[in-house]
């Protein structure tokens, strides 16, 4: 582990923290354009977070310490995840400590805490949201693991940086398994990030909301951290997707500062495109009833399993 490697790690983490709200703003802007509304400012998420940090926090009288702890745990988990997903360079000292399975574990940790906190207050919405969140999560996680396993099978390693290394350096060929895995991953990401068609991030309608129902009781800095963590989660998922399916442009090794410098605009470009596609998917699809979610995620799981089977049989 060298100092430069640590530096690149730090740069990447800082970039993730800085870019995550921008990505959310960008997606919201695209959604507004696509549905012929006038768009909110691109930097609105930053302002919201700043505004929330300046306010005084109000906490329910019956809240336990867990309730106060949760925003920090969630935010911390997302930061850790951002540290091990290779978005700029593949030489990440932190990534040695955790592989893809640990990554899924980090997301699960955040989910469990946020669900516990939602139930902590004892309001009806909190429990409802927590139940739905766990329901979606328990269906989405196996599918996500399957996608990651497929990528691991192809590259022979469960460590994200080495998967990216292998995938970026293979010869150009058609991989049906990766295509299936990509579709499955997109579906899982939609569900995990509380996006249409599973959840709608822009609604507070009690019949449909999942994520928003859980964070209703939070205010001020707690809410700011949670919002920021959600943005980071979206950023992390986007980066995993890009790393697995479009790994081109990610710098190899940490010595080459020019490559890292080049990787930044490439990443921003890819994220912009990905954000636009996300907005497009959200605009053209309708939110489905919560009871259809098992079918949606079941399909994702099926695709992921098919990807693995196809890889095993066809060797591609």
């Amino acid at each position, binding site marked *: 582990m060298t100092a430069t490697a640590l530096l690149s790690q730090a740069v990447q983490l800082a970039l993730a923290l800085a870019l995550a709200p921008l990505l959310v703003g960008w997606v919201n802007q695209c959604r507004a354009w696509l549905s012929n509304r006038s768009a909110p400012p691109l930097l609105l998420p930053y302002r919201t977070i700043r505004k929330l940090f300046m306010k005084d926090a109000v906490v329910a009288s019956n809240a336990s310490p867990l309730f106060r702890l949760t925003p920090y745990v969630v935010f911390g988990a997302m930061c850790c995840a951002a540290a091990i997903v290779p978005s700029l360079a593949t030489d990440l000292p932190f990534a040695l400590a955790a592989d893809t399975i640990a990554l899924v574990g980090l997301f699960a940790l955040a989910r469990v805490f946020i669900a516990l906190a939602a139930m902590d207050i004892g309001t009806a919405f909190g429990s409802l949201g927590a139940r739905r969140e766990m329901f979606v999560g328990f269906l989405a996680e196996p599918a996500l693991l399957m996608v990651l396993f497929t990528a691991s099978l192809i590259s022979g390693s469960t460590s994200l940086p080495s998967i990216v290394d292998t995938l970026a350096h293979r010869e150009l060929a058609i991989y*049906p398994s990766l295509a299936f895995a990509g579709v499955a991953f997109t579906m899982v990401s939609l569900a995990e990030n509380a996006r249409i068609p599973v959840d709608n991030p822009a609604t507070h309608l009690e019949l449909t909301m999942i994520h928003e129902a859980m964070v209703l009781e939070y205010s001020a800095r707690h809410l700011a951290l949670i919002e920021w963590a959600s943005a980071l989660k979206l950023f992390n998922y986007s980066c995993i997707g890009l790393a697995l399916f479009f790994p081109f442009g990610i710098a190899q090794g940490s010595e080459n500062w020019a490559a890292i410098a080049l990787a930044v605009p490439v990443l921003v470009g890819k994220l912009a495109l990905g954000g636009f596609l996300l907005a497009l998917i959200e605009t053209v699809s309708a939110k489905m009833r919560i009871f259809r979610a098992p*079918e949606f995620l079941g399909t994702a799981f099926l695709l992921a399993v098919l990807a693995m089977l196809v890889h095993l049989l066809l060797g591609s």
Partner: protein
Amino acid sequence: MNVLPLYAQLINLFAAILLLLSFAMLAQRRVLSLIDLFAAQGLALAASTAIVAFGTGQHHLYWSAGLTLVLKVFLLPWILYRLIRQLDVKWDFERLINVPTTMLIGIVLVVFSFNLAVPISQLASTVTRSTLGIAMACVMLSFLMMITRRKAIPQVIGFLSMENGLFFAATSATYGMPMVVELGIALDVLVGVLILGVFFFQIREQFDSLDLKHLEKLKEGE
């Protein structure tokens, strides 16, 4: 890793698409979408056959591809569409097992057929040999679809898609059966669908419905 020639990659891709479409048909609720999926499957089949023909220089396969295109992409879906319009059944149909369970059974079937196919495809000399397992999986999935559906038309589409799987097995494992056999099979399929079309009307006339639960009167020992 060694890289296959482009046409073999394309065939693999189409094989994967065929498998995906088989699953989609298994999950599909609406009859009309089912027919569209069947047509799409036919298209993927025709395309992969044409690519095999191109890649291996087996020119008689162009004829098979053309035959598939005409029969399975245009003629049969058209007949089925007409039938449905005349019979006026386009709505959802119930199934015996719910979708996720069917899917899980489907995955088990795919694993089973892959296992069955592995020793065989190792013997094959064709570049496309590994797709034999996928063809077998498609056959099994269509079989599952026929079992889980209660209505007459989906059962027939399952039957036809089973034939698609068999055809794919023939092209991928052996570069196609002799032409005379393929013509005979195509003729049988076409005549079969026409006869079934007549049948639908008769079943409807007799039972006022295409639900096969009316067709369970004949039992053992009665």
